[in-house]
């Protein structure tokens, strides 16, 4: 019985002009988006590889100079595109792409692609993800909203009920019919995308590509399921097809357009972050007065005394290490806790903001799905935070290695310190700092991090199915 209901529903949908139009538009858009995204991704990968290799090379070829000057010259960390960024570009346009790693200063990532785009870019990226998050639900609504209320209006629901079909059969039959119609639009597109991916050779084969695609497909299927059952539920609960449609479109606009922005504003209120100017002024003032209130130079005087005592000498020139280098490294380290506090405050606030937004997924299923999709595509904040912290680790190590080398190799200059008396190091010395390599976070860690989002999606799906069952059970011969 279920299959014949499904077949009827399916045939009816497929023969409808609405289906042909919406399906054609969706397929066209999906293919365009994937193609354009893929082309951009290829360019991005090529440029990032070249830039990182170039910067690592520049570090070595910077010319003979004092090791500490070399640390000032520094190196750049360039953020690689996420492995599935051509499907979901996530926050990539709005997060910086390059971190300058230099002596004395921790830096934010600079080079936000959105800065180099017109204001229209704020309407969002056309990507596979945005189409599946926004268009797919609308397609489902269009195909399914008449399932019960339409039949009720035309009087056929009464007819079907009188033939002894159980409410449950009716529901599952319709779900199957509409679901199949949706799938025959979406699945070919996804297959084409996957095949294109497999044939591409320039792609960085990230860890667990198969797992990524499976998890993503699962999440999007759950999302589609939520809309499918909600559509059927509302259709069964409302008297007129036009009411069904308005309720569903209202919900769709709410979850897809209104909530992402509203959630972002709410999270900015619950976890406010300072603007750049305020943050910068606070941090630099903190640096000047010292982390614990003792200015770095005062602190260093104390350290010098301690050092002299330790080595049993009376003046810095007699120390068995190059005193200038010791001072450089020490001052560097006095700044660590200040950086950790101020950069950490921003990082934690951002993470907390995301958590708030994810929690608001209780009201809008698009929010948890969005987070999952970005995370699995490697274009979310977990990836970005890891990148920033890798860069900072690299920076501290680079500066330490250079100062350390200087401190050991220039001991003999301690007594004759002047601007014409210094050591020069060459490529061989610079090579003790290994090139910058970004280690993306582990896939398993990403999935664990988003456990609650998967749970939210599952809850939504369960609630939608529950509502649909409840609504279908209410239908009776009398009420139809």
């Amino acid at each position, binding site marked *: 019985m279920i299959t014949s209901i499904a077949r009827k529903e399916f045939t009816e949908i497929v023969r409808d002009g609405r289906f042909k139009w919406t399906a054609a*538009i969706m397929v066209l858009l999906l293919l*365009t988006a994937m193609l354009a995204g893929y082309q951009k991704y290829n360019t991005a990968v090529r440029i990032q590889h070249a830039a990182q290799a170039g910067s690592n090379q520049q570090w070595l070829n910077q010319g003979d100079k004092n090791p500490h000057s070399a640390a000032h010259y520094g190196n750049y960390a360039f953020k690689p595109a996420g492995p599935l960024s051509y499907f979901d570009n996530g926050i990539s346009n709005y997060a910086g792409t390059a971190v300058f790693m230099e002596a004395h200063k921790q830096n934010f990532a600079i080079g936000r692609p959105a800065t180099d*785009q017109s204001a229209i870019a704020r309407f969002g990226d056309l990507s596979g993800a945005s189409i599946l998050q926004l268009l797919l639900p609308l397609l489902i609504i269009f195909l399914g909203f008449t399932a019960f209320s339409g039949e009720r209006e035309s009087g056929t629901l009464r007819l079907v009920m009188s033939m002894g079909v159980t409410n449950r059969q009716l529901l599952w039959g319709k779900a199957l019919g509409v679901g199949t119609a949706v799938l025959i639009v979406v699945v070919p597109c996804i297959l084409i995308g996957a095949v294109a991916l497999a044939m591409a050779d320039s792609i960085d084969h990230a860890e667990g590509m198969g797992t990524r695609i499976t998890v993503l497909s699962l999440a999007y299927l759950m999302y589609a399921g939520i809309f499918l059952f909600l559509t059927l539920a509302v259709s069964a609960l409302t008297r007129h097809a036009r009411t069904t449609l308005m309720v569903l479109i209202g919900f769709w606009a709410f979850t897809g*357009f209104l909530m992402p922005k509203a959630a972002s504003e709410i999270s900015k209120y619950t976890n406010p972050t300072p*603007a750049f100017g305020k943050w910068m002024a606070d941090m630099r003032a903190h640096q000047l007065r010292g982390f614990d209130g003792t200015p770095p130079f005062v602190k260093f005087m104390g350290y010098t005394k301690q050092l002299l005592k330790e080595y049993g000498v009376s003046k810095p020139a007699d120390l068995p290490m190059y005193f200038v280098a010791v001072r450089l490294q020490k001052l560097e380290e006095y700044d660590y806790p200040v950086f950790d506090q101020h950069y950490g405050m921003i990082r934690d606030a951002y993470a907390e*903001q995301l958590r708030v937004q994810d929690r608001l997924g209780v009201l809008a299923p698009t929010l948890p799905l969005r987070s999952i999709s970005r995370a699995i595509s490697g274009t979310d904040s977990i990836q970005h935070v890891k990148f920033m912290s890798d860069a900072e680790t690299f920076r501290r190590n680079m500066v330490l290695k250079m100062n350390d080398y200087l401190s050991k190799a220039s001991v003999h200059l301690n007594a004759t310190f002047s601007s014409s008396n210094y050591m020069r190091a060459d490529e061989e010395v610079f090579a003790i700092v290994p090139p910058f390599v970004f280690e993306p976070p582990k896939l398993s860690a990403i999935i664990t991090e988003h456990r609650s989002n998967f749970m939210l999606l599952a809850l939504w799906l369960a609630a939608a199915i529950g509502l649909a069952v409840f609504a279908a059970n209410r239908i009776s011969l009398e009420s139809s």
Partner: protein
Amino acid sequence: MLKLIIIHETRQLARTGALWSILALLVIAIIFAAWSGGRSIDRQVAGAQAAETFEDGLRNHMRADTEKYAAKVLAAGGEYQFASVRHAPGAGPPQGTNAGAVGAETSKFVTLPPTGLAALSVGQSDIQLNYLPVSLATTLDMTKNLELENPINLAAGSFDIAFVVIFLLPIFILAMSYDLLSSEQERGTLAMILAHPISIRKLMASKIISRAAVMLAVVLGFGVIALLTVGTALDAADTWLRFGLWIVATLLYLAFWFALAVLVNVYGKNSASNGTVLAGIWLILVVIVPQLVSMLATTVYPAPSRMELTIAAREAQTEAEKNFMSKLDEYYYDHLEFVPEGDEKAMDFLTLAQANNNSIEKAVRPLYDKFQEQLNKQEALVQRFQYVSPAIMMQLALNEISGTSANRYEHFLDQVYDFHDEWKEYFSTKFLQRYPLKPADYDDFPEFEYSEEPFAAVLARLTPSLLGMLILFLGVVLVPFMALRKYQVAAR
């Protein structure tokens, strides 16, 4: 007769629960948008102030040092001298007498002030940094900082009044008017009404007018409230001129959506299918077309890669260093404070540092200009293609009106570049002359005052968008009203 039907329609509307819930949602959205837009602008302004205060504080500190030094010189006699390198506090002339140090180690933050309406359309102002540090550093250093904001929030975009107007209002309008004729038809009342001495055009017009009147009352009423609560510079004529334009743009935009609803009603079938068509059109015009145009712009005129720019800038830096510093140790260029007192050679480092910056600037400038050029081309393409979607026209118009557009920012940047040159000129000349800065000189430092672009320029950029919306509206509204002449109830 028309008046009678309008009154009747309005009464009928007032009795439907749907209308009230739509209006309630709209009011909540407007209040929320005004609140969040206002917060966003306040945050930027506070950021600009903090940055400026901090840097000015550094300079004031240097000035205080020179005052102490001047008093000392006056008391002890002798010459007011120029600090070659930084000395321990109290010994010798302070660093504040050295124009090279003052101009390079402190910055002057220059600010693009928000217009009175900035909170209504945040536009690009959450991405662009509206306050830039001007010092002896390069243009690249000056413009590299970004406004700090969670990328997740930037990607989601602001929930400002512009969003409510562009995205939400059309949905509300469509929900109110997707079944203007079809519902009467489905109930069978249309034939009855038309049996009275009223033309279907008048009926349609009165239905639309009553709905539009309700919608407008809410939008304008709360628009004014929003302006009064989160707008700034309310006593300036500029603010009210801009608000007038804001109203004009909003009216045109709303008119288009009402016209579209009429069009679909006239040619449509039943209510449900009208609803699907209208929702589909909304999605295409407000979401998909803008995204496609944006994609087109970035594909046809892609910005050069920032990564490649960085590498090229480094290349230039390395070259410059090799040319100018090969015989000297740049180590001291980084750490002038460590150069022992009386080291004559050290003085050359600052000179070299400036030469170095200049040559980097020269090498990078063409690359940097290419970004602006590509961005301008993208903007031009969007300007040309804006007519395909009222949402694009509206967004461009609102950004212009609120002063958060790329054009106004560029106008600001031009002034900043000029000021940067002025700053460099002032401080490097004094430095090269080894002129000892006196406390009084601190009052003569170059000051920045943003001069607003002439209103005519804003208007000129705005006109195509407004005209486009007007033409689109007329086109959409004329067709159905012509067709209504032949509308036959029985044929449906």
